[in-house]
């Protein structure tokens, strides 16, 4: 039986991961896009991104667009695997409870 991932299980991080795994492996999301999409504050999103980055689930790249700083975020292979395992665990709970 798969186990729930405690790091991803947190509601905000679950939403962040869900949004990022929607992108293909070659795509990167802008910080502002993610913040507005998930209706989060800058600080809140930063904290959760850092936790996920420390776990190796996300990668973050800071660049400049002209003079404006731009932060790109994308999910790593380890992050995709962890998220898939978490979804498996959730589905198992739903199905086991039905049986």
């Amino acid at each position, binding site marked *: 039986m798969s186990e*729930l991932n405690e790091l991803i*299980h947190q*509601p905000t991080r*679950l*939403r962040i991961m*869900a*949004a990022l*795994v*929607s*992108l*293909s492996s*070659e*795509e*990167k*999301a*802008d910080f*502002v*896009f993610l913040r507005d*999409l*998930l209706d989060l504050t800058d600080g809140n999103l930063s904290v959760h991104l850092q936790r996920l980055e420390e776990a190796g689930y996300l990668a973050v790249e800071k660049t400049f*667009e002209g003079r404006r700083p*731009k932060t*790109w975020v994308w999910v790593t292979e380890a992050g995709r695997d962890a998220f898939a395992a978490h*979804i498996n665990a*959730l*589905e198992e*709970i*739903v199905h086991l*409870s*039905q049986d």
Partner: protein
Amino acid sequence: MMDRNQAADDLQEIRAIMKRTRVAMGRRGGWFMVIGGVMWLLGFLGNHFLEEYLRGYWWGLLNMIFTPLTIGLAIRMGRTGEVRTSIWKPITLFWMILMVYCVVMILVLNIQDEVGFGLFILLCVGLGYAQLGLFGDPKMVFVGVGIIILAVAAYFITPAHFYLAMAFLGGGLLIGSGLWYLRAGR
């Protein structure tokens, strides 16, 4: 231990966020539909009102303006937009292949009738949107099928006003769909 309802709620939330993300990303595609719709509107209005010998120049002028605009926008969006992506490359290649196919078919079929020529190009464009929808956003299939139905209907029902119908109905459909995409992704 998490109970079944919590797990089901989490799964539902994940699906909702994934869908919202795809819709928000698809919003950018709306700009291309608006640009295509404006070009279509102007182009077919030209076909209806201009002398026959001027029509080729008119479309050439529109292509010179709108093609670089579209490619430039695609590259800029891919690099600096909300999501950095290289999806514009296969999409651009797809449209180029379809246009080459369309030109080859026109040559092979030797279409002489100018309205029939227009219809064939529109059928190719409609097919392009429908195919993109099958591999991307399914709503795009309706845009493609809508273009095909409108073009065929205008061709058979009101051939004398074919270009005018395509300017306002076809161009309008593209502009309206594009604006809808832009709005839906907010």
